[in-house]
């Protein structure tokens, strides 16, 4: 399918999804749960751009996500700050603008991180990204303006654009972000950039010897991946209404964003989407029926199962069946 057609299809699917949800979902819980699953579609798709397409495992999802969330918290407090410091009155910053700003800041963080760490490979790169998460968390914990370790309360605006309650608005925005991230991932996959990233994943020396500017492409991947993660994090303060470092840097973001593409399949855009829907839904069900404490245990068990049964994820499993069916037929 051509990219332009694919974009049209996923935008149409996104709109239809929101419209149907608004028509038939009356219980707010479904929006809260759906928001989390959609958020994981964005995070796992973003992770897969660097981890799946390029072969660099990033354990710093929490850092990029939280930077997006905290940039929104700063922008939320901005009118109050400008008023008290300079007697300036500005309108509250709209959430879509916060999402763009969160994406830009996290993208810059991705670029900087990439520049400093992309000479590392494998487990060393993964450790460096984990360290990034700790460094950023330490900075936030010691930044009083955003509440430091005690956190910050965010009051949602009284009115939500596009009609309905604020949670419906957040759900709509996260659907749009999911469509955006999936569209970007699919566009990369079939492009010259995607081929270059795959070459890097397969063999970096051979890629460089084939003329692939490996450092530049890796920086593009870290920047895009970081930006999408930041965009996913930007609406978080309005979702949770209380933002604190412990929850915004939660290890679950890093673990889930790795596990979902691994379970779904890392070589295709659909893999992270399947992984996020499957794992995200199971986690939401477990949260309401048993306990949210089980969430990471579920991830661990599923990861072990998939590494044994389907190391290339659900997509790899289906492709294998299809190849077998074609060769038998």
């Amino acid at each position, binding site marked *: 399918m051509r990219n332009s057609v694919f974009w049209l299809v996923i935008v149409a699917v996104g709109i239809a999804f929101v419209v149907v949800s608004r028509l038939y979902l009356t219980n707010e819980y479904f929006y809260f749960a759906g928001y989390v699953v959609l958020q994981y579609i964005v995070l796992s798709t973003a992770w897969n751009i660097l981890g799946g397409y390029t072969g660099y495992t990033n354990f710093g999802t929490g850092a990029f996500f939280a930077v997006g969330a905290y940039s929104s918290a700063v922008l939320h407090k901005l009118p109050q700050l400008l008023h008290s410091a300079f007697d300036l009155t500005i309108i509250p910053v709209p959430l879509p603008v916060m999402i763009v700003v969160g994406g830009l800041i996290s993208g810059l963080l991705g670029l900087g991180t990439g520049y400093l760490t992309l000479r590392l490979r494998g487990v060393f790169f993964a450790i460096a990204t984990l360290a990034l998460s700790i460094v950023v968390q330490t900075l936030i914990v010691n930044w009083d303006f955003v509440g430091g370790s005690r956190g910050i309360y965010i009051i949602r605006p009284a009115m939500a654009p596009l009609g309905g309650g604020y949670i419906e608005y957040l759900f709509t925005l996260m659907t749009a972000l999911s469509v955006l991230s999936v569209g970007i991932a699919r566009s990369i996959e079939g492009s*010259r950039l995607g*081929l*270059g990233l*795959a*070459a890097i*994943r*397969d*063999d970096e*020396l*051979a*890629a*460089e*010897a*084939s*003329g*692939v*500017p*490996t*450092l530049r492409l890796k920086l593009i991947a870290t920047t895009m991946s970081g930006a999408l993660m930041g965009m996913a994090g930007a609406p978080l303060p309005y979702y949770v209404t209380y933002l604190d470092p412990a929850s915004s840097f939660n290890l679950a973001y890093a673990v889930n964003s790795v596990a979902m593409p691994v379970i779904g399949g890392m*070589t295709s855009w659909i893999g992270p989407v399947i992984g996020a829907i499957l794992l995200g839904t199971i986690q939401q069900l477990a949260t309401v029926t048993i306990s949210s404490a089980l969430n990471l245990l579920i991830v661990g068990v599923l990861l072990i199962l998939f590494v044994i049964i389907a190391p290339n994820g659900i997509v790899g499993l289906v492709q294998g069946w299809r190849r077998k069916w074609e060769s038998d037929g």
Partner: protein
Amino acid sequence: MADTLLEVTGLGKRFGGFVALEGIDLTIAKGERLGLIGPNGSGKSTLVNCLCGTLHNESGTVVFAGKRLDGMIAHERTRLGLARSFQLPKPFHSMSLVDNIRVPLLYTVNARHGHHLTDAAIAERCEELLTHVGLADKARRRPRDLTQVEMRKLELARAVATQPTLLFADEAMAGLSHSEIEEIIAVLLRLNGQGITIVLIEHIMSAVMSFSTRLVVLVAGHKIADGLPQEAIRNPEVERAYLGE
């Protein structure tokens, strides 16, 4: 030399306290078929790595097609026309053979000023290159389906896809049978016939002697002989290095 393609002067490379290369002077003319030999650990691959930008030499200068390569990274050198195949084949495992060839066409040929191959031209060139090395019938297969000699041919085809003027074939025949070696030599001779200067780094002396028009011998990071193949192998220093005192 009027038709000099590559000029290396005083090249040196160390790994900590170990001197891998020291004071290497080497000139390669356009269209030459140069054999580069030496015992294991003599610095052949290190020299190729330094010339192709995979490693950075601490001393000396490298001038290729009139341009100084010092500080230039590997993909920039590839785009200038300096290609290599690897001692251990490094195919892009997740891609079909066609996509393996598309990578250099998209990133090297299309990145050169004034060049832009259309999708149709790229597809045509991929087929042409795979036919050239006898892999056209496996174009949609993955590298894991190839035999050792086919893997070596893919490696050469991918290097040639960059449209090089100088190709380093690093042990392109290692582990191959006699008839397979003949196949690779035939491919290399055809490429040389098309105007590509080739440096063959090899341990199989019969292959080197039948292919090369000039021989350079490295021992312990030093160049000890440079000349016609028959003369170079009779050099007393070369005999000592290979056969002992």
